[in-house]
C-alpha cells in the first residue's frame, strides 16, 4: 500500500510548475529522491531543444543566402507562385530572406525565442500552404526554397521537408512556451 502511494506520487510530478501531487486536489513543491529520473529526462529535452534550434537556424540561414544575393530572381519566383498582389512581390523578395537570416541567427544564439518560434511557425505554414496550392493547381514552377536557380521544382518531397521543419518548430514552441524563462531548466527542482 505504501509502495503504491509512493509510485503514485512520482507519476504525478509536474515539471513545469515543479510541483508534486500530495492529495487528490492538493499539490506541493517537490521533495524527494527523483533527481536521477528527472536528470535523464532533462538531458533528453535539452538535446532535442538545442538540436532543433541548431537545425532550424541552419535551414533558415542556408535558405536566405542565395535569395539575399539575387533579389530580382527571387521576385520572379514569388510572382510565379501567383499568390501575392503585384505591389507586394518586390517587398517580399527583399524582406523575407532578411527575416529568414535574422531568425536563423536568433535560433542559433537563443535570442528573442518566443517571437522567433512563432514567426518560424507562421512562415513554415505559409510555405507549405503555397506549395500545396500550386501543386494542386498543377503549376510547374521553381520552388525557390533554398536557391533562386531553376531546376528545383515543387513536389511532394519539398512539402514533406517543410512539414519536418514545421514539426521541429512546433516542438520548440511547446518547449519555449512551456518553460518559465524560455530555456530548458538545468535542474527540475532546486
Amino acid at each position, binding site marked *: 500500500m505504501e509502495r503504491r502511494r509512493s509510485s503514485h506520487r512520482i507519476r504525478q510530478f509536474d515539471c513545469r510548475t515543479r510541483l508534486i501531487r500530495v492529495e487528490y486536489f492538493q499539490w506541493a513543491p517537490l521533495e524527494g529522491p527523483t533527481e536521477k529520473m528527472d536528470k535523464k529526462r532533462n538531458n533528453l529535452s535539452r538535446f532535442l531543444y538545442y538540436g532543433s534550434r541548431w537545425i532550424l537556424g541552419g535551414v533558415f540561414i542556408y535558405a536566405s543566402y542565395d535569395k539575399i544575393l539575387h533579389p530580382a530572381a527571387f521576385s520572379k519566383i514569388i510572382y510565379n507562385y501567383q499568390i501575392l498582389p503585384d505591389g507586394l512581390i518586390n517587398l517580399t523578395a527583399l*524582406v523575407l530572406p*532578411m527575416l529568414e537570416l535574422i531568425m536563423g541567427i536568433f535560433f542559433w544564439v537563443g535570442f*528573442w525565442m518566443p*517571437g522567433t518560434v512563432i514567426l518560424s511557425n507562421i512562415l513554415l505554414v505559409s510555405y507549405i500552404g503555397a506549395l500545396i496550392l500550386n501543386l494542386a493547381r498543377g503549376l510547374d*514552377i521553381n520552388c525557390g526554397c533554398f536557391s533562386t536557380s531553376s531546376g528545383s521544382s515543387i513536389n511532394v518531397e519539398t512539402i514533406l521537408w517543410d512539414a519536418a521543419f514545421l514539426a521541429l518548430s512546433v516542438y520548440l514552441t511547446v518547449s519555449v512556451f512551456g518553460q518559465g524563462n524560455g530555456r530548458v531548466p538545468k535542474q527540475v527542482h532546486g
Partner: protein
Amino acid sequence: MRISYAWIFHKRFKMLKQKCLQAIWQCSALIVLASLLAFSINYLRNERLHLFGNWTPEARLMDSSGKRLDISLPEAKKLFLQQSVVFIDARPQDDYEKGHIKRALCLPWNEVDRDFMRVTEDISPDTPIITYCDGETCELSHNLAIFLLDMGFSNVRILINGWALWKEEDLPIESGSSTAGQG
C-alpha cells in the same frame, strides 16, 4: 506548503500570457528589423530592386529598349508555314526528345553555356527566332530570349506557353533528338 489547482492554473496562465505578449512584440520587432536591413542593403546595391515593381504582362515581356518580346500563336504559325523562322526549345533535353515543334532546335536554358555556340553557329544574327517552353509561367524561354538578344541576335520573340498551345492547335510536331541539339 499546500497548493490548489486554482493556484497552478493561475500560475500557468500568467506565464503563458507573459510569453504571448513577448512573442507579439518580438515578432513585430523582427519584421521591422528585417525590413530596415533589407531596404538599407537594397539601397547600397548596384542593381537596386524597385520596392513596387511593375508586374503587368506588358512590362515583364519587354526588352531593355521597351520592345515587346512575346508573339501570338497565329503569327508564329504564319512564320512557321513560311519557313522563315527558327524555333528554339528552351526546355530540358529529355522533354525536347519526348516531343517538340517540327524543325525546332534544342537549346536547354540549363545548358545554354555549353550548347550555345554549337546550336547557333548556322543562324545569322538577323534571322527571326522564336523561343518557347511549356507553361504560362515558364521562365526558360524568356531567359533564353533575353540571353540571345544579349548575344547579338536582333529578332528574338517568345511564344508563351508555346509547347502546350502548339499541341492544342494540332500543328506539326516531331519527337527524338535533332542534329543541331545533340549533346
